């Protein structure tokens, strides 16, 4: 036993220290109590709200995207449910990222670089889903959703994607939907877009994005702190389906136009071509084909970086709608402007004869007539019909550069046509250096209808989700041309004369009345023989009653009227052929359209080789 402690040996108890220790304990516990009082009683309500916000959050309910039909009601796009694979970066541990990405890439048959690129260019926050792959096969999706812990951060989502049944036929018109890009997101976020949303990227899908998208609904969902959804709680607002569109495009005419263009390009060995069919009475575009093209389904499925880079690198620019987004020199088709201008400004009359020559000398430079001979003194009916260069040089001289520019602007050159598609170009120069195919056909449509320059349109009606017409079709007049109607009648007759004098070979033999103007536009650099490569153009006008009748053997009476039903344009890029390829393409289209059994095509004119002879 230890010795007993008695009073003498008792150590001196540090009474002050006990007191101070007790005070410190009271202070500390008091401090904790005060802070708890502040947190739980004073600020309690605020934290309850925060806590509620922590477990419930608003989540968007995607709306059904509107559909697109052609003018006859053929569906051009469908919404199909598919599996999409997404990654929530916050759930993907950085040290496992390489492993997860490479496994995901092999499962999805993707390039790991594409996956890493998607994660790194993620426009949202680390808590937002990043789209990795769209349209994943069922088996893969099932495998991925079961992988769970092996693939942290990877989520499989069911969503609707666009399917374009007609594929390449209308791809440049429709465009496609794709993921929101990082630079778009800040602006789109305020409109309710999500970082992993899909939206129209080009074409009609982009131009009519607002109408097609509809309005996303909102629901509250319960989540745990790691962001995983536990359950849907309630729908706050219902999603409102997007509007559907009826196009002015006729899928059947589109197919015919594409068939004609494909034939012409193949026969003449062309790399690019455009065909546009327009109703001159309304500005409705019935067909618009630009080749080469691409399949918009590839984009809707989520195109790989490699495939996209290949499309971008293609020097014939398949992603570009050459009908509206590219400009080319118009060549002789431009004589419409010069001729109408000279007549309107009374520089000449219909009976004025202008002497055509083998060439004109301006300073030291010889400007050759295309046939190197000329046709003597001829009126505009013949000058236009033969597409005489020396004739129109002189007219241009009479007009002067300012008036020429004025008339070009009046016909709509040098300004976007305002067509309801993205990327509508203005053309460069004072409106007469280069033109877009849509500007050119629109000018000829105004010629055909007696002077009404309409805004070309590809969407006819906007239909609400309930089937009601939200926006009916109405032609949109840009302006009435300042060209007198009598002048336009003369020019239409001159255009008929182009066909009659067989400038366009056997086009006149067609059982229907067609007027038109061809064009050959040199570009690029001369070859060893001093010849230039050239594009060829043709714009054809078909009257309301095209049938040839005995009372109108030349078709002039039909062309004097302003009731043309069709204007058809063909553009053949770099067509170094013997004859005008564009004319043959338009001819073939008209044969198909009017169901003409006899084949009038001149295969021999499409032989390749630089035969610069016709204009």
């Amino acid at each position: 036993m230890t010795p007993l402690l008695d009073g003498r040996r008792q150590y001196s108890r540090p009474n002050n220290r006990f007191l101070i220790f007790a005070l410190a304990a009271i202070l500390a516990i008091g401090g904790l109590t005060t802070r708890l009082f502040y947190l739980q009683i004073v600020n309690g309500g605020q934290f309850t709200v925060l806590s509620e916000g922590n477990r419930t959050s608003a989540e968007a309910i995607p709306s059904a995207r509107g559909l697109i039909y052609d003018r006859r009601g053929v569906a051009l796009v469908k919404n199909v449910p598919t599996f999409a694979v997404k990654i929530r970066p916050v759930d993907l541990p950085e040290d496992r990222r390489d492993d997860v990405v490479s496994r995901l890439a092999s499962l999805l048959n993707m390039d790991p670089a594409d996956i890493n690129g998607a994660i790194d260019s993620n426009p949202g926050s680390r808590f937002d889903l990043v789209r990795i792959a769209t349209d994943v096969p069922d088996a893969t999706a099932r495998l991925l959703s079961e992988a769970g812990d092996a693939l942290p951060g990877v989520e499989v989502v069911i969503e609707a994607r666009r399917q374009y049944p007609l594929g390449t036929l209308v791809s440049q018109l429709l465009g496609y939907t794709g993921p929101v890009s990082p630079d778009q997101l800040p602006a789109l976020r305020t409109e309710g877009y999500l970082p992993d949303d899909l939206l129209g990227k080009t074409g009609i899908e982009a131009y009519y994005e607002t109408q097609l998208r509809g309005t996303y609904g909102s629901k509250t969902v319960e989540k745990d702190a790691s962001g995983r959804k536990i359950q849907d709680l309630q729908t706050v607002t219902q999603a409102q389906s997007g509007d559907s569109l009826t196009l002015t495009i006729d899928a059947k005419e589109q197919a015919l136009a594409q068939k004609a263009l494909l034939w012409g390009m193949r026969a003449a060995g062309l790399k690019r071509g455009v065909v546009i069919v327009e109703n001159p009475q309304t500005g409705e575009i019935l067909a618009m084909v630009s080749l080469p093209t691409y399949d918009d389904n590839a984009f809707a499925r989520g195109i790989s970086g490699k495939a996209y880079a290949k499309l971008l690198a293609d020097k014939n620019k398949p992603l570009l709608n050459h009908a509206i987004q590219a400009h080319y020199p118009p060549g002789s088709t431009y004589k419409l402007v010069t001729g109408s201008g000279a007549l309107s400004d009374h520089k000449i009359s219909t009976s004025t004869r202008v002497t055509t020559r083998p060439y004109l000398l301006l300073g030291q430079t010889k400007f050759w007539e295309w046939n190197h001979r000329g046709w003597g003194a001829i009126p505009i009916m013949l000058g236009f019909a033969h597409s005489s260069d020396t004739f129109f040089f002189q007219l241009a001289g009479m007009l002067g550069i300012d008036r020429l520019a004025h008339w070009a602007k009046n016909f709509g050159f040098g300004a976007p046509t305002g067509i309801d598609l993205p990327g509508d170009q203005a053309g460069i120069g004072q409106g007469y250096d280069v033109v877009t195919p849509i500007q050119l056909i629109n000018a000829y449509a105004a010629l055909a209808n007696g002077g009404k320059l309409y805004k070309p349109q590809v969407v006819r009606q906007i239909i609400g989700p309930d089937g009601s017409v939200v926006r009916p079709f109405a032609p949109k007049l840009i302006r009435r041309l300042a060209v007198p109607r009598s002048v336009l009648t003369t020019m239409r007759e001159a255009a008929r004369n182009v066909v009659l004098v067989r400038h366009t070979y056997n086009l006149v033999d067609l059982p229907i009345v067609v007027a038109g103007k061809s064009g050959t536009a040199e570009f690029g650099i001369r070859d060893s023989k001093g010849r230039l490569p050239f594009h060829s153009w043709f714009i054809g006008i078909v009257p309301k009653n095209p049938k040839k009748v005995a009372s109108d053997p030349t078709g002039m009476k039909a062309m004097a009227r302003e009731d043309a039903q069709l204007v058809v344009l063909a553009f053949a890029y770099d067509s170094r052929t013997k004859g005008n390829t564009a004319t043959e393409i338009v001819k073939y289209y008209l044969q198909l359209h009017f169901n003409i059994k006899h084949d009038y095509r001149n295969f021999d004119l499409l032989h390749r080789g630089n035969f610069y002879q016709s204009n």
Partner: protein
Amino acid sequence: MGVIRAEPARITDWAARSIGAAWRAFDLQLAAYAGLLAILGLVMAYTNSVEQGQAVLSGGTTFVRGLMWTGIALIAFVVTTAFDYKWLKTFAWPLYALQLGLLLATLAIGHGVGGASRWISVGPFDFQFSELAKILMIVVLSNYLGARQGRLGSLTSILGACVLVAPPWILVMLQPDLGTSLVMIGILAGMLFMSGASLRWLGSMAGLVLASLPIVWNYILRDYQKQRLLSFLDPSSDTQGAGYQLFQSQIAVGSGGLTGTGLTNGSQNQLNCLPVQESDFVAAIYLEELGFVGALVLLVLFAALLFRLMVAGWRSKDPFGMMFASGLASMILFQLVVNLGMVIGLMPITGIPLPFISHGGASLISLAVGLGIVQSINIRQTRAEW
């Protein structure tokens, strides 16, 4: 003092009298407060188990493990109460060796998260020996400081205590376990203060430590260590980890309000918002589910427990007893303040458990042993007087 109830000697019922006296000297209040706190800990184990969707009474749940550890702790408490604490003085140095051995073993064969070694597997259970080491630390310091009564005005005594603490402290830092090492410093400071050591020296030493911090920061710490310290001191720099936890924890506490959301109803807990909700952040769940009223109950129980510990120290005529009670009180107070402070956003996040409430066998058993020793001191003071 009036606390010692001496009775006239009656030889005939020596045994009965001895046990009766011991029972009377046993601090029932101290045991009751500790028991109530342990029951609150079990309640939290229960609510955690329910919210994690476990069948509460099936094997391996937090609750069942809690019950088991409480049982073991009760036995440890009874055994240490019966054991004469004076042997601790005799065996202070072997106990010191045992402490170092346990910590060395933890370093050698322990395991933990992210390369740390904190736990040793004992059968199916993980046991954190550094908890036990804290109690042994108090025993060793009590012996040292108790024996040097009257010589504590000198610097050597203070430095001696520091030298005693240094080896285990370094071993804990090597694990690395910043939380436990901080608790050890807290215990040392509290015990030095209560030992009556010269305030002048203590003050100058504290000043010296504070003054040397910039030198340590600039010349001794490496960049990655600084970074760790920075994120330790500033949780908001690590929003995904510690900062996130802190924020969620405050939301949990705040949403408790006056009366709490009710047991098993804490949204933060149910939704798994708090990562270490059964151990270091258990208080957040407690405060959410039981509210401010529950908080008051908890704090009053702790205050009462600390008061009874101080009374035991005051009563003790043996400096060892006074020192031990002070050391245990320092430890509990320090852990309470740091843990609750962390949960309610007053302190940075450290891995310090809340005594009795945080789940962990080692912590509970160590507390039971510590309280048992204090009861042993209580009982044997009475006998000594008589």
